[in-house]
């Protein structure tokens, strides 16, 4: 017990929480935007893989770090566009299209990787984002130290949450987005295009997912590996539900999940680690997420038109 308290009081633990949460935050916000507009985007896992590759490859090919992030964003938006065209105007099953996009994005990423780096056995590394310098912040114990250990991308992740929240709740665009996921007829009858709004949401959201993937290769680590996204995208789907489709709560969910993860890594080295199999520790984030879901977001308000395609002129 005292060990847990010690862990919770250490700056490095909180630094790890923020690092682990960052890619989840980007991708969760991306998914949240899509679902708020009424589209479940199961392409998330593959789009993250592709973003991880695209950002890293761009930097390896000589672009700067920020242009690399931008490149990942654009690549994600490209796959988002495919998803959007198929699910919005054509109204195809969001399950099939999403899983199909995940498969397509993942495998074409691997194919591209293998074609561009046929001879290399360990992938080349790039110079990733470094923690920002905060001379004053560093001196605040725990919180300040943890924040000071973060790269610009983590700060960007938090900024994205603020922007998403502001757009959703404070702008006409956000209003249209929220309405599109609840009752597309309401949007249409006010003279707006449901198709354009939903497609825009899916494309923008997919861009964010890709940036989440890029975080892995450009901040958390410095090169690209197959399968390195390792289910993080699926976690983000859960986080959106956990967050009851609200940016603030979803952020909280991402931090909680990352917290459980950072905690289990550390618990493995405590006395518990001797007796409990490591799989139990790895399970902690998932089990606690389900528990938290049961306790917190019971009967959350699902966007009523989620997964319901809209075709003009249908009743």
């Amino acid at each position, binding site marked *: 017990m005292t060990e847990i308290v010690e862990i919770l009081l250490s700056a490095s633990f909180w630094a790890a929480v923020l690092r682990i949460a960052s890619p989840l935050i980007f991708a969760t916000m991306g998914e949240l935007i899509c679902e708020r507009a009424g589209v479940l985007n199961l392409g998330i896992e593959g789009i993250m893989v592709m973003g991880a590759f695209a950002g890293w490859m761009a930097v390896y090919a000589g672009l700067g770090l920020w242009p690399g992030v931008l490149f990942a964003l654009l690549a994600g938006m490209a796959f988002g566009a495919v998803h959007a065209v198929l699910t919005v105007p054509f109204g195809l099953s969001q399950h099939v299209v999403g899983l199909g996009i995940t498969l397509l994005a993942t495998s074409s990423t691997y194919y591209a990787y293998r074609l561009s780096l046929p001879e290399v056995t360990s992938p080349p590394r790039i110079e990733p984002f470094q923690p920002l310098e905060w001379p004053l912040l560093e001196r605040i114990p725990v919180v300040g130290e943890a924040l000071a250990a973060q790269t610009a991308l983590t700060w960007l992740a938090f900024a994205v949450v603020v922007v998403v929240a502001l757009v959703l709740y404070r702008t*006409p665009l956000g209003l249209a987005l929220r309405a599109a996921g609840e*009752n597309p007829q309401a949007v249409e*009858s*006010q003279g707006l295009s449901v198709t354009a709004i939903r497609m825009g949401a899916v494309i923008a959201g997919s861009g964010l997912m890709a940036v989440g993937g890029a975080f892995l290769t450009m901040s958390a680590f410095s090169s690209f590996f197959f399968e390195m996204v390792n289910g993080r995208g699926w976690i983000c789907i859960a986080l959106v539900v956990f967050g009851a489709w609200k940016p603030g709560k979803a952020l909280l969910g991402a931090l909680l999940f990352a917290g459980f993860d950072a905690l289990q890594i550390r618990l493995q080295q405590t006395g518990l680690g001797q007796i409990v199999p490591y799989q139990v520790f790895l399970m902690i984030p998932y089990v606690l997420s389900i528990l938290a879901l049961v306790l917190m977001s019971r009967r959350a308000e699902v966007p009523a038109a989620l997964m319901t395609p809209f075709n003009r002129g249908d009743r």
Partner: protein
Amino acid sequence: MTHEDGAQDTVLRLTGITKRFGALTANDDISFGLARGEVVALLGENGAGKTTLMNILFGHYTADAGTVEVFGRALPPGQPGAALAAGVGMVHQHFTLADNLTVLENILLGTRPLWAPGLGRAAARQRVAQLSRDFGLAVHPDARVGALSVGERQRVEILKALYRDARILILDEPTAVLTPQETEALFETLRRAVAQGLSVIFISHKLHEVTAISSRVLVLRHGRLVGEVATARTDRHRLAEMMVGAEISAPAPSVARPGAVLLELDGVETEAQGNATGLRGVNLALRAGQITGLAGVSGNGQGALADLLSGLAAPSAGRMTLGGAEVADWSPRAAVAAGIGRIPEDRHRTGTIADFTLTENAVLESYARQPVSRRGWMDRAEARRRAEAIIAAYDVRCPGPETRIRLLSGGNMQKLILGRVLEAAPSIILANQPVRGLDIGAVTYVQERLIAARDAGAAVLLISEDLDEVLALSDEIRVISEGRLSPAFPRGSRSPAELGQWMAGHGFDDAA
């Protein structure tokens, strides 16, 4: 007056509008004009093409032929945005509101460029408050729409149009879900707006409303414009005839011969469900061969009473006895087994399964019993026979029993439900808003059937927000207010005004 002249006076002109859905011609070469400050009523049976025409005018649908001109300028087809910009507002037959947004947000939706930095809520709130006052449309701008009653939602829909300075307002069955009081308030609003120059197209199946509000009536039949008449020069009977093409007379119930008490509530209470009131100490006896009408303003516990009789809810206190025996294990299935026939309020959401065929819908309540099924196996031929029988006996107009019921008009859907319920020969009938939204022909038909069931010995509970309907059909009337029931008033013993007093909550024991 005529409207073919006075070009500066004509705010809207439809010319040669034709719209086909597959083989069906929903609108057939329809032309008419609308003048400034005029209320035109559009009449027609279910499926006559009224909504389709309005959807074309507003840009939801694109016509196959014809043009729409607003203030002398042609509207580009298929663009609601353009219609809105030209000053056309539409209150849809089915609400187009986002439940997760507030009233204000629903009104603001689409009124500013999407990329604008803010919503301008403060100014908008003032404007909405002003409009509410000017037109007597009281709603709270910051209430979530999901929490509003239908009447309030209707007001939000109208505010949406007024907020955009609509100069032409289309109202597609705005009163179908309103109480008479709410309807009267709406008309008051409309008269004020019309006086300020608003032009209105008004759709309703209720002829007394049409005569009350419109200055001119257009009648559609099978997609064609079959008549046009100044309201002042016609009456309800003539209008009904124009619509249906035959004379219609309202059913006149014979004298009831009440029998034994079949269902009795004794001091029954039920839990409140969210915003909806529960029942408070309700005593009620339903007798064989008698129609008991329940009058009241919507939201006063009608839903709770209907849920109780449907089997969806059980009493939290008090006794409910059926044929003398107290009920146990109350559920929808138990209610059906006990011989209660239930006509639900919302035929789309509770009464039918839209993507089931007529056959499948016809056996919704009997699929689990012989002869429709045996030991878990369905007899599809038997189910189909039942559907065919209902279709024939109840005049359900449809392409066939294997059609998805989604494609039927509300009236025909209602007839199928009626058949499903009555074919089981129920001893008790719960009829909750049985004619809402139906055209006059269908209304008459449904009411006749209910009377016939009464005469055959069933106890009928008729719940309706239409006081006229309650007065016309009921052998005795109970008024519901805040979950309490008034004493039973025999037919003709109370005037509408007196009942109105009870509906407003006066006269109850515990009323202050």
